[in-house]
């Protein structure tokens, strides 16, 4: 069978189960596909050289009628800031360019327990700090829809590899929009779960109180399938919620009455092509029992709050990179320790260094109340506002991004202008609510995503509505690769 790489996760699993093709067939095709096109996309940092062996072992089991896990056949691309045992994990940073973790992140372990195959590690902005996947030490990834354009970030490799059919699904991390932004720019589905629903154990921390690991895929069903494996309480992560031990999400075609709230400030601030698409999406969604209305959410302080907290936590999380327990070859003998640490750490990229420094600034004892504490209080206010809205409506809608994908290198100059493109996505991280980006259409062949957000722990509602939208929006295009 050819072009197995175009199949969805569900189709792969049933194809393997029905012996239409072997997992080895599938993995070989994926590896060939990666070989053919990844030069143009640069989604991958490392290919797992054990992938084929694992595939063969699974095929053997299937052949001898032995039981295999529910994800047998699925090939997952893992963002390179998620620890994979014995597979290099670099965070796209010189400081970790040779790091081979001695342990698996919980999400990786759970995938492996269900016999998913790790096909490789995918590109990101260094330490997940960025929205374009341009700032990693391996260089930028290129948008499968138009290689001169950015993929979005920081989980750019995760989105691009799924869009370019180089893997079935992928995992990314989302601190201020890092899954949803590239999902929107690459026309794939990307979910940031409720804070605490998916374990962060093994996710190289950037901002602990904001980030979550989440799945990216070509369909909503694929996302649900992965969530059922990775979500749920983990004793290794004290911030995971104990309401759900074993998730049982469904991807059904149930139609239910839904009240949508369109966040008017976010639509008004976006590119006209985008707002046009949002309104037509709302038309598609409307029916007898699905109505939409305009709502208002004042997020004036959201971006400042987000960057204050993210940079502060980052400055602390990245302190451990001193090249002693892991790192690159640089003999410490003879150096005075402060000087050694400082020389080593100057190998971080510019964006990372600036964020660490600003993070240090806002945590200085004289400034703590002014910045960090204030920013945390803003979160409480925002949460209060959002909760009020969820009494009025069930689902909040906005464009995922206020702008269309732009050319690589275009948005580099003004840092605040760069940060402003996160405006639509940061609210979900600040408040802890789940949010998904769905392919909504194109403008000049450049993808546009629609963002849906529900209240905390309302993932099932979010999945139901997403499936509804997916069925009426019918975005079935593939990039020309």
């Amino acid at each position, binding site marked *: 069978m050819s072009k197995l790489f175009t199949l969805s996760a569900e189709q792969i699993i049933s194809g393997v189960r029905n012996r239409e093709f072997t997992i080895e067939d599938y993995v070989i095709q994926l590896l060939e596909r990666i070989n053919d096109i990844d030069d143009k996309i640069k989604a991958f940092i490392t290919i797992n050289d054990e992938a084929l062996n694992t595939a063969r072992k699974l095929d053997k089991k299937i052949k001898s009628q032995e039981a295999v896990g529910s994800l047998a056949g699925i090939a997952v691309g893992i963002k390179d800031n998620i620890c994979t045992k014995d597979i290099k994990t670099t965070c796209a940073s010189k400081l970790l360019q040779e790091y081979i973790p001695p342990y698996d992140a919980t999400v990786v372990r759970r995938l492996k327990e269900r016999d998913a195959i790790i096909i490789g590690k995918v590109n990101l902005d260094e330490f997940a700090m960025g929205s374009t996947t341009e700032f990693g030490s391996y260089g930028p990834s290129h948008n499968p829809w138009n290689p001169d354009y950015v993929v979005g970030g920081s989980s750019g490799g995760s989105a691009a590899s799924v869009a370019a059919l180089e893997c079935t699904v992928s995992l990314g991390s989302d601190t201020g929009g890092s899954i949803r932004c590239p999902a929107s720019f690459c026309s794939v589905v990307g979910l940031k779960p409720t804070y605490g629903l998916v374990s962060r154990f093994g996710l190289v921390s950037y901002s602990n109180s904001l980030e979550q690991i989440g799945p990216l895929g070509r369909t909503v069903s694929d996302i649900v399938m992965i969530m059922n494996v990775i979500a749920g309480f983990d004793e290794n992560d004290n911030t995971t919620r104990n309401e759900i031990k074993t998730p049982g999400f469904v991807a059904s075609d149930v139609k239910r009455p839904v009240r949508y709230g369109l966040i008017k400030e976010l639509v008004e601030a976006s590119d006209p092509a985008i707002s046009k698409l949002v309104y037509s999406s709302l038309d598609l969604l409307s029916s007898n029992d699905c109505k939409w209305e305009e709502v208002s959410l004042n997020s004036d302080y959201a971006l*400042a709050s987000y960057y204050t907290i993210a940079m502060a936590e980052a400055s602390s999380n990245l302190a451990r990179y001193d090249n002693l327990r892991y790192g690159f070859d640089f003999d*410490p*003998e*003879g150096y*005075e320790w402060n*000087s050694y640490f*400082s020389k080593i750490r100057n190998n971080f990229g510019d964006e990372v*260094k600036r964020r*660490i420094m600003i993070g240090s*600034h806002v945590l200085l004892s004289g400034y703590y109340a002014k910045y960090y504490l204030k920013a945390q209080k803003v979160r409480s206010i925002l949460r209060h506002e959002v909760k009020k809205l969820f009494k009025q409506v069930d689902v909040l809608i906005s464009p995922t991004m206020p702008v269309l994908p732009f050319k690589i290198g275009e948005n580099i100059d003004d840092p605040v202008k760069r940060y402003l493109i996160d405006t639509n996505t940061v609210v979900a991280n600040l408040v802890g609510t789940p949010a998904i980006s769905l392919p909504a259409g194109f403008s000049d062949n450049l993808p546009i995503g629609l963002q849906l957000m529900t209240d905390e722990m309302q993932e099932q509602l979010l999945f139901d509505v997403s499936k509804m939208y997916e069925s009426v929006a019918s975005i079935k295009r593939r990039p020309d690769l």
Partner: protein
Amino acid sequence: MVTIEHVKHLAWLSRLDLTNDEIENYHIEIEKIIRYLDRLDSISLSDVEPRHYERRVSEFRDDIIYDDNQTDLSKTTKYSKEGYVKGPRMR
């Protein structure tokens, strides 16, 4: 005003051995960003409590040894001696 001196101090606090060029370039960007973050000054939130998550003591783990996941530092450490990790001098 975020001065160059302050930027140098932040670099020291963060243990970053910046070049003079880096200090100058970063200074401009950092000042812009901190100006932006200063908008947090324009709201007073003295009555607001930051959100926190809570757990009861019984929800934390038991005091039972588990040593199946011991880390072998020799696999990731570049310089070691007799099992110790080699580090720079303290003086």
